[in-house]
């Protein structure tokens, strides 16, 4: 199709008949950045400091076991491959590990379980009927009797039928059983989460705060492939039930060097991605990339120095690292995609207010999704973008 006749009937009928799709100058569903934008540019995953672009950089991570840092080879890996590699390692080293969920056997709709059913057998890696409450209840039962089930919920948006099993059962099992010593530790419920720009009401939700309200569940959101691998292996090893939410927009987009050897990362530590003196920016998952870009611009423009913290374990969370940072900087901004009302930001802000009140130079800011649903045509105005984070830094810097 040529530019000249893109909108005409004849040309449209050509595209419907043609087998090869040609690019036409029509409005695409995902619009490009405005011509003069300086801040709201697409994240450049090949240069962002959030990802380890070199082997040397990832192997310098002090959280990795020394043997990995010294000996491991690394491979450029995206997030779904990193999840796959963690699952593969868990399945091959521990017979108790099972992997199941809707459409898991052929590799999963996001390819996280690719080849695992073939390699580990359909007794251990299998499709379930389409029933989230059964998937999670089944996982709890497996875990309660000594297995290590990794259950997949196809989208975080579809976890709600399993809410009862998670909130009333998984979270409370150890407490309820008391001295009997029965629990469902070893269970991990994985689910793709977050906005993709066009997922609308039911493919872009970030429901983490519904679970961070529930003591007994661990809630984890990795920001990158190397983090996903180490945190997922730690989740499978954890004695507590874990909700592991994978930012689905990063599955293919985020690529970095990941150690080939297995390793776990701590489930009780936030990660300081960048140190700074004046402002603490706290986030997790996808918005960290936008925070990083906003910080870069703000540091240039306003001459401030920002510290960037990835919570990674959203609940229970590393209060100490955050309070220490804010005690140093005196200013804090919390950023997340999900709705601001009663979100994770509210908990973090209240904790800062309680624990670092006398050090605060400005009110804690929250840059989050608005208190509405994820309408498809409005997603990019709903989730925090670089501009809103940058503007929030400007605001607290000049408070």
């Amino acid at each position: 199709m040529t530019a000249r006749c893109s909108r005409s009937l004849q040309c449209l009928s050509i595209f419907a008949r043609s087998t090869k799709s040609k690019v036409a100058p029509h409005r695409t569903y995902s619009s490009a950045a405005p011509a003069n934008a300086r801040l709201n540019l697409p994240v450049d995953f090949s240069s962002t400091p959030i990802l380890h672009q070199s082997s040397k950089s990832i192997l310098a991570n002090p959280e990795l076991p020394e043997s990995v840092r010294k000996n491991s080879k690394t491979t450029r890996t995206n997030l779904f491959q990193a999840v796959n590699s963690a699952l593969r390692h868990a399945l091959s080293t521990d017979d108790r590990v099972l992997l199941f969920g809707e459409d898991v056997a052929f590799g999963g709709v996001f390819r996280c379980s690719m080849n695992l059913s073939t390699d580990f057998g359909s007794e251990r890696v299998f499709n379930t009927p389409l029933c989230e409450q059964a998937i999670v209840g089944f996982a709890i039962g497996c875990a309660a009797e000594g297995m290590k089930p990794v259950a997949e919920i196809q989208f975080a948006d579809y976890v709600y039928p399993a809410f009862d099993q998670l909130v009333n059962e998984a979270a409370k099992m150890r407490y309820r059983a008391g001295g009997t010593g029965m629990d469902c530790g070893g269970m991990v419920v994985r689910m793709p989460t977050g906005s993709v720009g066009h997922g609308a009401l039911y493919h872009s939700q970030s429901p983490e705060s519904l679970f961070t309200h529930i003591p007994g569940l661990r809630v984890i959101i990795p920001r990158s492939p190397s983090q996903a691998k180490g945190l997922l292996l730690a989740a499978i090893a954890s004695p507590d039930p874990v909700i592991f939410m994978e930012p689905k927009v990063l599955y293919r987009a985020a690529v970095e060097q990941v150690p080939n050897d297995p390793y776990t990362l701590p489930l009780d530590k936030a990660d300081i991605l960048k140190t700074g003196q004046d402002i603490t920016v706290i986030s997790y998952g996808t918005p960290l990339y936008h925070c990083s870009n906003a910080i870069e611009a703000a540091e240039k423009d306003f001459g401030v120095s920002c510290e960037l913290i990835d919570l990674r374990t959203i609940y229970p969370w590393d209060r100490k690292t955050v309070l220490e940072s804010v005690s140093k900087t005196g200013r804090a901004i919390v950023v997340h995609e999900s709705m601001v009302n009663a979100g994770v930001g509210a908990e973090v802000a209240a904790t800062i207010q309680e624990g670092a009140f006398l050090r605060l130079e400005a009110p804690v800011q929250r840059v989050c999704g608005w208190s509405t649903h994820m309408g498809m045509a409005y997603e990019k105005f709903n989730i925090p973008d670089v501009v809103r984070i940058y503007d929030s830094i400007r605001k607290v810097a000049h408070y």
Partner: protein
Amino acid sequence: MSARLSGTLNCVRRSTAVRSTSSTTALRSNSQTWRRWQSISQRPGSDRVHFPGAVNSRFTTSLNFQGTSADSAMPTYRILDQDGIVVDRNRAPLDVTDDQALRWYKDMLTVSIMDNIMFEAQRQGRLSFYMVSAGEEGIAVGSAAALLPDDVIFAQYRETGVFQTRGFTLDDFMSQLFANKHDSGRARNMPVHYGSRKLNIHTISSPLATQIPQAAGAAYALKMQDAGNPDRPLDKRRVVACYFGEGAASEGDFHGALNIAATRSCPVIFICRNNGYAISTSTLEQYRGDGIASRGIGYGIDTIRVDGNDIFAVREATARAREMALRDGGKPVLIEAMSYRVSHHSTSDDSYAYRAKVEVEDWKRRDNPITRLRKWMENKGVWDEAKEQEARSRIRKEVLGAFAKAEKEKRPPLRAMFEDVYAEMTEEAEGQVQQLKDVLKRYPNEYDLGDYDGGLDGLEKKPR
């Protein structure tokens, strides 16, 4: 159970019945329960059990677990064979006029042609997502043809033919697909999540099976409203039709829905499209019983299995189900319509990752609701190749015309992002509108508002 014990239970039931409500319907069903409870007292020497949970079960001395077997599978109702020929020569004449058949044929053809065009448009990045109905056009069009405009519909997503048959226009489809300002869903939903108050079809929701218990409740509402309403004589009473896939029928919501619909005698027709797949999961992994139909029986619901490639059979079964649903104060009916998902699940799916191409090709060759009806019409002499070509090219032109128009339209005003969360926008949300406006104003180069009706101004409160 002794007479004395059951007498006590009766008393408990009666007192709840008296206390519970003054609504006549509720009283009637409570008195039914009351009768059932009375009948459970066991006569000495009876050959039957009178447990409250199974009031007419024969005693047996053979230790026999009942199972299912392949030969006991519920039969599949059809009228036409694959060549479009009426199978039962002795049956009553078909109550189908040529005009009706032609209209349904064109409805199926329109869905099919629109599907091909939109699938390709998605591949070009013009919309984010699309789902086709290939192979299932007959289920949607055939069932919708048996419903009345006042009937209320809950759909899953592969029922474009229901919308088409009820009068959703090509402009309506295209406005939703391109999320423009004429979309009645206000550009909030993913493509193919249509809805229409005018056509009494609730807006499609992605979470599977949630619509099924809602359909039962809606049917109960219609029953309460229509009973004794002089504007609704028996032949004007309404039913609810509820569509879902065989995969969705694994959800707890399906089971709860059938049971509550049965116990509350709701005039609802549950229409399951069994197309063999739920994304990559075949029915072999989805269930072990005799399809979805066998579950209807388990819940005490009259059930039929039909050949989904036979539009006449689907339509006749739905028409009969509609009558049954309204009879005797109302009851649910379950239809399991068998077909094959010829297409990929959606534009996000490549089904050759989990099924062989030959399987699909075989199915396509063997049978299809559109060609079956076409053969019937050709046998009758009301259709031929020239008419086919003319119809196809006309429909294509109409679809492409609506496409071109809708794609150019602006999106709704930005304020629509915040509206309709509550009936009235909250003070909190109003503050957020102002925050967003402030950012958009101060960083004009960072945002492209040209696509949205009214640009920045579109955030202002306007009378709607």
